[in-house]
């Protein structure tokens, strides 16, 4: 019980969720439908919904996706997520600033790649350290990066606040600084990355990751390249997280400093994938919905129910406690995450349809 094994993390993945979801075609169809709806949103939603709800929701889903590849598929837990987001953000910022001739998507991608390389370096630890000690050691990366960007003015172009703010966002002359523009930029990025991620987890690479997750010792004996597998996982994961970080900085907040990517962020993302479902792509979206939308929802409900009647401070504390309780409740009721729940719903649905 006191022994710590990397499988502890792998064990979490529900068998079905691991690879090749049951009804792939159905899934793809649903995904397309969802994408369509999301793309149509700007027509109806107001700025508040784009700026404060949908954009962060999408970006956090993307971050979850990144971490899920590392943790849910390759079984390597990390709390460096916030740090990798900040690398993506600061790298993209400096690329946009210092190489203005680069088109936005390229800078985004390069920013991601740089984050990926940093992740790869951090991932070297995983070659020797396992399980919880690895989790704890990724905190070193988290805090170091936070410090680095706060400490050295160069990264933030020596702005007084050592915070960075979005240069003009534009693709081929189309200005994207409007809420709708930023929303569509985010949506497009998320869609593309998701498709690639799905390809990846169904490829040899994905298989390698899951083999490492399920039984690393055996995997090594049958000649699966453990080390490179782990490092690839760290690279890809951090790359995606980096892109998400850049979007968070420029498509969502507009201005950030390193503390927007602090440990709480890392925890938030880990919540997203655990509540959503480890080793599941859909899970990231469900988890993000839970973590981003629910607090706002609680806020609205609370305001609606007891607006004014109770002292707002008390109300806030109540909400916090309630949210915490909800998380625990979910972990107990749905240990395999919302994805498993959704899968069950789906199968029930199709069953009832057949009847």
């Amino acid at each position, binding site marked *: 019980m006191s022994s710590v094994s990397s499988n502890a993390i792998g064990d979490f993945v529900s068998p079905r969720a691991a690879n090749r979801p049951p009804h792939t075609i159905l899934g793809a169809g649903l995904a397309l439908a969802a994408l369509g709806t999301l793309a149509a949103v700007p027509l109806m939603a*107001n700025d*508040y*919904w784009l700026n404060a709800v949908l954009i962060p929701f999408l970006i956090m889903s993307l971050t979850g996706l990144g971490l899920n590849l590392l943790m849910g598929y390759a079984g390597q837990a990390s709390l460096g997520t916030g740090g990798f987001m900040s690398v993506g953000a600061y790298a993209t910022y400096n690329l946009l600033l210092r190489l203005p001739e680069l088109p936005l998507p390229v800078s985004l991608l390069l920013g991601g790649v740089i984050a990926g390389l940093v992740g790869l370096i951090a991932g070297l630890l995983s070659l020797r350290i396992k399980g919880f000690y690895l989790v704890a050691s990724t905190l070193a990366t988290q805090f170091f990066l936070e410090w680095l960007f706060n400490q050295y003015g160069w990264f933030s172009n020596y702005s007084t606040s050592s*915070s960075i703010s979005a240069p003009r966002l534009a693709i081929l002359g189309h200005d994207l600084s409007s809420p709708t523009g930023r929303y569509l930029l985010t949506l497009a990025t998320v869609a593309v990355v998701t498709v690639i991620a799905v390809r990846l987890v169904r490829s040899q690479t994905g298989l390698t990751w899951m083999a490492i997750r399920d039984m690393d010792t055996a995997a090594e004996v049958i000649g699966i390249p453990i080390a490179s597998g782990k490092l690839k996982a760290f690279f890809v994961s951090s790359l995606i997280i980096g892109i998400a970080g850049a979007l968070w900085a420029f498509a969502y907040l507009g201005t950030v*400093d390193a503390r927007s990517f602090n440990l709480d962020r890392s925890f938030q993302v880990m919540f997203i994938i655990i509540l959503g479902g480890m080793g599941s792509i859909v899970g990231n979206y469900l988890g993000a919905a839970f973590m981003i939308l629910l607090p706002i929802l609680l806020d*609205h409900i609370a305001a609606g129910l007891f*607006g004014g009647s109770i002292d707002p401070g008390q109300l806030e504390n109540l909400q916090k406690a309630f949210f915490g309780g909800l998380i625990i409740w979910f972990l107990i*009721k749905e240990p395999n995450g919302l994805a498993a729940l959704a899968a069950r719903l789906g199968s029930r649905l199709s069953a009832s349809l057949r009847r």
Partner: protein
Amino acid sequence: MSLQGRGLRVSTMRWLAAAATIGLSFAVGAVASAEDAKTQYFPLSTFRVGAYASSGIPVWAGVIDYFRYINEVEGGINGVKLVWDECETNWEVEKGVECYERVKAGKNGSPVPIFLPHGDPISKALTEKSAADKIPLVTIAYGRTEAIDGRVFPYSFPVVFSFWSEASSAVNFIAEKVGGKEKLKGLKIATVYHDSPYGKETQVPLAHLAKTYGFEDIQIPVPHPGNDQSAQWAKIRQLKPDWVFLRGWGVMTPVAIKTAAKVGFPVDHIIGGIWSGSEEDVRPAGSVAKGYLAITPFPAGSNFEIHQKLKTYILDKGLSDLKDPKSFGSVYYNSGVDEAIISVEAIRTAQAHFGVRPINGEEAQWGLEHLDLSEKRLAEIGATGLEQPLKLSAKDHEGGGAGKVLQWDGEKWNIVSDGWVRSDRELLLPLIYERAAAYAKEKGIKAREATN
């Protein structure tokens, strides 16, 4: 299976409920009742939970009490009553932005005149958004110092006391103590600062002042949250500065005071900055804090005229937002009152120009840039001594730039500086304008012409 089934049904229902509620709140958000509102909407972003709640709570109390006073006693601003609702930020950037986005559209047709971000990081995150939405940010004693240049930052107002003025006034107070600025030469002044963008804001001005007056400028960072400072104060003990300028936030201040005592540094030679100078900062330090100094634009005290009014009309009537009456007249409470006064006066000025009605951000921006809080006006409000006279313009979004120095006697703060300690604004403004220009250049902003 049956159990699974139940879990399933329950969760299905929850999600339906969730969806419904989202839809509902969305509808509510969208349907801003078309009927032209007679009231002035004034959203408040608050932090009543999280690490800084203790500092936040008295602030809103101050704001809300003054608003209530305006509504109850003066019947609103020229008859236009204020309505407000709160949005919790936890002092986190994301939540702050979310709140801003939630409220910026106004409420029931009543527009947002002014947004008080209440948090240095939040205000920085909102700088551009607010300019785009034409909603002025009033950041009293925090926020971007460059924003003093309204030609580049039309919608950011670091009114009253920017961090640069804070630093400069602190130095000038030391000069006052040692007997003249020429005596500053050769002094060692160590700044112990919260290692964050906020904490670093004073590095540039202090370096400049050190060059000008010939004192030695020592900078000692304290990592967030600052609950262990043995290393920093060991360093102080080694360097033996004559004065320590303490720019903390949250738990950092009491720990600093206690650790100072631990290494035997005289507490009456520590000058706390604006955010290290409240009751909430020194009380936890206990007896060792006796003699501790702090510079602030919101002098503590409950015997200003306005406080008498607030007491009779609000507190005694049980209308106050203050849960613990001890905080009445505390630094943070008074900062709230200050904020409220400036906001209300800005709206008043705007009304004088655009007509008596709920006014929007653009009009409030004009109001702020033409705000003139003369001695006379302050006297009418009853804020003489609480608030310094100030006059804003497009070229100067700060106005005042002076603070008072308080000393903690173990029970309460006493004002020990004679009147307001001015900062060397004329010395620093050129630097500020330079930085603003640089910012404009980086962002491709075209500085507008100063209208006044």
